[in-house]
């Protein structure tokens, strides 16, 4: 009998030993917060840029030279367009002013973090590079955050170049306003001036641009800094205009007249080629391979065909 008890005890111990030693499945899938698998990914030294179009107005080009080569794409900031802080003043009530903090830029996101609803976003740009054997694509999102005092808003439909920036202002997925800024250089400092409308109130906004290690810097054409001659005109853009421009595959652009004064924002549209919808077959194949269908827009703001991207950024399907 004692032998039996001993046998049972040993058996129990063995069971626990097996349970503890059993390998846990990888936490693959969403989040991609797992460690990078070093730099053994596709080398980018000999990469051939596929989507290397000429710079278009109202869009700062993607910096393809610093795209990561890690095996898994993780969410990280790729470029910073504009960051700074300043004041927004209600012209009808000088004591109604708000403290502004803003940051806009391009963020690299994992394909696994792109929802079906977001896969054709006007702020999503996919840049692909060809390595020796494979094509690897990087989903980049133009995004921004705006604080008015302590209240946070997100920016969407962002169009930005080295001299102007426009965006829609969102609060909890609802569009509540818009912002249009032009860059003014004064006293060796960079000031972004313009108008912002939020919840029906329009403010004059003055933002002191700050430096950031990922800040996009470019040579800007020198201008005669006589903005007084521009008169009391600051560009403003209607949130509805931004939305309709985006739906038509365009970009908001703030031009300058011969005196360097900002002109009214306009929607620059190019004739977008038709987008071929993905077949049901590819949709199923992509899902079965654990991929995500990602579309977005090109440099001109035109919608592009969806591709099936794996978490590594490689195309599949």
């Amino acid at each position: 009998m004692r032998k039996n008890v001993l046998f049972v005890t040993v058996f129990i111990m063995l069971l626990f030993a097996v349970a503890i030693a059993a390998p846990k499945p990888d936490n693959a899938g969403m989040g991609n917060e797992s460690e990078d698998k070093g730099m053994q990914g596709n080398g980018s030294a000999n990469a051939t840029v596929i989507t290397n179009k000429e710079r278009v107005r109202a869009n700062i080009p993607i910096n393809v030279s610093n795209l990561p080569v890690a095996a898994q794409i993780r969410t990280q900031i790729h470029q910073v367009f504009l960051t700074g802080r300043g004041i927004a003043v209600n012209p009808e009530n000088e004591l109604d002013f708000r403290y502004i903090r803003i940051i806009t830029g391009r963020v690299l996101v994992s394909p696994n973090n792109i929802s079906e609803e977001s896969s054709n976003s006007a702020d999503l740009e996919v840049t692909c590079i060809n390595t020796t054997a494979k094509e690897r694509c990087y989903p980049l999102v133009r995004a921004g955050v705006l604080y008015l005092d302590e209240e946070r808003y997100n920016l969407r439909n962002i169009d930005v170049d080295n001299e102007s920036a426009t965006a829609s202002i969102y609060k909890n997925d609802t569009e509540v306003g818009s912002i249009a800024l032009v860059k003014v250089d004064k006293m060796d400092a960079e000031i972004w001036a313009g108008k912002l409308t939020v919840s029906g109130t329009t403010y004059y906004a003055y933002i002191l641009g700050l430096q950031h290690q990922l800040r996009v810097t470019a040579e800007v054409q020198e201008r005669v800094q006589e903005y007084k001659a521009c008169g009391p005109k600051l560009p403003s853009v209607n949130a509805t205009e931004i939305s309709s421009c985006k739906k038509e595959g365009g970009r908001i652009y703030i031009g300058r007249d011969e005196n360097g004064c900002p002109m009214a924002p306009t929607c620059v549209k190019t004739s977008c080629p038709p987008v071929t919808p993905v077949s049901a077959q590819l949709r199923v194949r992509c899902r079965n391979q654990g991929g995500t269908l990602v579309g977005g827009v090109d440099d001109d703001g035109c919608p592009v065909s969806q591709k099936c991207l794996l978490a590594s950024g490689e195309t599949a399907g």
Partner: protein
Amino acid sequence: MKKTIALILLLVSAMLFGCTQKGGAQPSGGQPGTQPKVTAAVEDIAADELAKQIPSGEENFTELDDILVGMAS
């Protein structure tokens, strides 16, 4: 009696073993390759990443002061 105790112990250990295995397993998504559904807008995911870099607001306004004074003079 001892046989009964041994049997009970065996059953309990088998149950514990099963629980341990189930707890260690990945939450099942059904078929292999199936991913949990993402619901957040990609712009918001990107904005959250950018928000980590937002100017804190704790900096002083020295630079802006200088500029405003320069503009006024």
